[in-house]
């Protein structure tokens, strides 16, 4: 029987294009210290440190976990670095959670970060295999043809992506930590922004951000002594599949469907749209909101765009998505998945400030990465299972 585990501390940096005021160690330290303050514990109380980030090639720093561990109070403690491409933030939380759930450790710190101002993600993601032609400029170049495939098969109106972008960018205005806060956001502003990777527009695309996020996780015997509201982890799930194989459904990969089914089974959820109060989903390009509403089995195949269209995913809708402004508003890649998991926890703890969903008790945190091939998710709840 696994140990019940809770999120007792959450820390985030302010997300910005360039955090010139902080080095990489400073960035992770800032998020970790805030998580410790939230958890009311000290560095000495932490049993193990789990660090996640995207590929080393981004910043060009080999094995950053080695020199960052000391900034995270990791001396003489177990330390692990996690990597699963863009989903890494989510996987980092799941690895940390599994260390507590397994009974190996009582209290674990997990931190994920990216310093995109010191990196070149488009270049790093455009490295192709030897002897082949590089044609895919960054993640957008990879995903744009899949978005086109989704539009073709679902018959979604072409402005669905614009509507997602407007909604997420409006939500970001409620989040003081968000990187992109566009006061003049409007349908026309997004619609008239340049096409980068047709059919994906500039304002339907995530920014490049600097930032870090940290969580403190505790087992039940420690967490139960606390009097404040906690986020209890009801279920976690990770799935993967190869980038390319014949007949692979890249728009709706088997791995996301398997992930969703198993997550809900573990969490005892039979009607996800009704039982989950809000979700923070990895949407780096606006169209991935309707795609993952289907991929997470929140709605039927080819119907995800209707949720956006009908306002179901708005902050006051029946299934709010990306209350924080999402990846579209803050994107320190390695941390982006953990920020989703953290926002789900903030919601059920009732500490999400201006972007709080009233009465949220059960929330979904979600991340994906690679060529839509890594999926990490969790369900957190204000009550124990």
């Amino acid at each position, binding site marked *: 029987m696994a140990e019940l585990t809770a999120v007792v501390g959450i820390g985030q940096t302010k997300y910005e294009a360039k955090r*010139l*005021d902080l080095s990489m160690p400073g960035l992770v330290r800032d998020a970790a210290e805030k998580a410790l303050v939230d958890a009311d514990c000290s560095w000495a109380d932490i049993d193990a440190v789990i660090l996640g980030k995207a590929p080393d090639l981004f910043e*060009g720093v080999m094995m950053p976990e080695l020199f960052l561990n000391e900034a995270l109070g990791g001396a003489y403690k177990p330390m692990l670095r996690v990597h699963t491409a863009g989903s890494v933030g989510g996987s980092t939380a799941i690895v940390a959670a599994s260390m507590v759930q397994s009974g190996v450790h009582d209290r674990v710190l997990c931190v994920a970060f990216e310093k995109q101002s*010191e990196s*070149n993600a*488009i*270049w790093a993601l*455009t*490295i192709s295999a*030897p*002897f*082949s*032609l*590089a*044609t*895919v*400029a*960054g993640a*957008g*170049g990879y995903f*744009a*043809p*899949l978005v*086109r*495939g989704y539009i*073709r*098969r679902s018959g979604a109106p072409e402005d669905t992506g614009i509507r997602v972008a407007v909604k997420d960018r409006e939500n970001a205005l409620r989040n003081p930590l968000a990187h992109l806060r566009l006061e003049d956001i409007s349908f026309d502003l997004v619609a008239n922004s*340049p*096409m*980068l*990777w*047709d*059919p*994906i527009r500039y304002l339907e695309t995530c920014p490049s951000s600097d930032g870090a996020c940290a969580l403190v996780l505790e087992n039940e015997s420690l967490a139960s002594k606390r009097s404040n509201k906690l986020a209890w982890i009801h279920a976690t799930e990770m799935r993967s599949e*190869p*980038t*390319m*194989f*014949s*007949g*692979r*459904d*890249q*728009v709706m990969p088997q791995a996301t469907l398997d992930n969703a089914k198993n997550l809900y089974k573990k969490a005892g959820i039979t009607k996800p749209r009704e039982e989950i109060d809000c979700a923070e989903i990895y949407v780096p390009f606006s169209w991935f909101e309707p795609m993952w509403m289907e991929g997470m089995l929140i709605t039927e195949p080819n119907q995800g765009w209707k949720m956006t269209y009908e306002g179901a995913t708005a902050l006051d809708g029946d299934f709010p998505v990306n209350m924080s402004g999402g990846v579209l508003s803050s994107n320190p890649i390695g941390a982006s998945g953990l920020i989703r998991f953290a926002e789900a926890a903030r919601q059920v703890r009732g500490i999400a400030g201006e972007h709080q969903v009233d009465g949220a008790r059960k929330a979904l945190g979600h991340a994906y990465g690679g060529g839509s091939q890594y999926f990490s998710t969790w369900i957190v709840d204000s009550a124990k299972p």
Partner: protein
Amino acid sequence: MSDRQMDGDKPSEHDEDVTLLRVPVSLDYDYSAGVSASRFLRGIEQGKLLGQRCPVDGRVYFPSRGSCPQHAVTFGDETVDLSDKGTIVTFSIVRVPSANIPLELPYIAVNVVLDGADTILMHVLDANPEDVHMGMRVQAVWKPREEWTTSTANILYFRAIDEPDADYDQYKEHI
């Protein structure tokens, strides 16, 4: 600052934080292609497009890496000759520069299924962006023979051919 003044240390321009430093790193790698990829590359060096068949489901992989990513089995030595004609299953018009892509913007990135293959090849299409569409029939335009090397870049780009569009149901599983 106030601490330093108390210590009598005069602030100067050298007290500015170093906030950003450029540190270029470069490295050339050797790469062993292995038996299967070598066979594929020797083929394309001669203008031949060699696929390989998965023994589990019979599907033809191009390019082949010698094993099936889904079933974790090897393909053996047998190859399948493929046409340089194919169908565009999906595409993007790219207006974002990348330092390692030597193409003028905008360019059309296409996912092509070659006739006889069951996997997609990522390449570029030479066409007016307004004309490109899913199901479009295309053919490879090759570099001059004397410039052929062991690379899929021997194909300069794909170009539309005068054939009716493929039916969506025929290629939709490759999107």
